[in-house]
């Protein structure tokens, strides 16, 4: 492939280059301006750090407030404090099951020889 193979385009770009070259700022002035920017840069960095700190504080406050809100909701519906009973629980109760759950007393009063 031949590059810059179009004489008309080449001519047009050369005119553009001549025009731009005439308006090019002096090299020394550009370097001096760049050095001035470097001297001014720490202020920008300070502003950036300040903005980052503000964002961190805002995010922290939001996170803490969300957590507090969530904790409050949890206290209201804490499942550990709720005793749930099924409607069919009564089917599990046997007649006289209080006797089964209590320990029989075997003592001198209950072992009456006269009754044996």
């Amino acid at each position, binding site marked *: *492939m031949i*590059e*810059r193979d*179009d004489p*008309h*385009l*080449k001519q*047009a*770009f050369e*005119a*553009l*280059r001549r*025009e*731009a*070259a005439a*308006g*090019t*700022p002096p*090299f020394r002035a*550009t*370097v001096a*301006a*760049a*050095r001035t*920017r*470097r001297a001014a840069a720490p202020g*920008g960095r300070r*502003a*950036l750090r300040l*903005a980052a700190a503000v964002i961190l504080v805002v995010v922290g406050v939001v996170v803490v407030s969300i957590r507090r809100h969530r904790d409050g909701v949890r206290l209201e519906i804490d499942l550990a404090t709720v005793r749930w009973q099924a409607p069919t629980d009564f089917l599990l109760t046997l007649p006289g099951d209080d006797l089964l759950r209590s320990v029989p007393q075997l003592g001198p009063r209950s072992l009456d020889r006269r009754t044996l």
Partner: protein
Amino acid sequence: MSADLTAQLEQLHAAAFGWALSCCGWDRTAAEDVLQASYLKLLDGRARFEGRSSFRTFVLGVVARTAREARRRSALRRWLPLASLVLGREAVDGRPDPATALARADETARLVRALGRLSARQRQVLHLVFYEDLTIAEAAIVAGVSLGTARTHYERGKSALKRLLEKEGA
């Protein structure tokens, strides 16, 4: 900054400014800002020449990257008005400087208008080849695309530019 680097940069200054103008849509103020920011990177050593390409290609690449960053900052400012408090003053707005636009000759004005209607990649590759006298391979490095892509942009861009110039001339 070493005297050697300064001398090399001075030699490339006009070419770098032309490239900065192209990257900033021929906005002179924006181009000066981008060029200063690019020189700042070179001064600070944030952009370091490692000999992987020619020094000219390297410097033009730094200018292209800096212009992209400036465009991104400009877009951020448009979307987030408060960002200007952090990012500082507006650097690139992409609009041509009125004084520059008035002073521009008719033929070059037609070329700039036609270039503005091409895609960014086509505009970049054509500028690098015709204005900066780079080869397509070097233009590919500066633009950050593959050689094949640069060739495609070059051919399609050249055809489109010729068509646009003919249309404007008619």
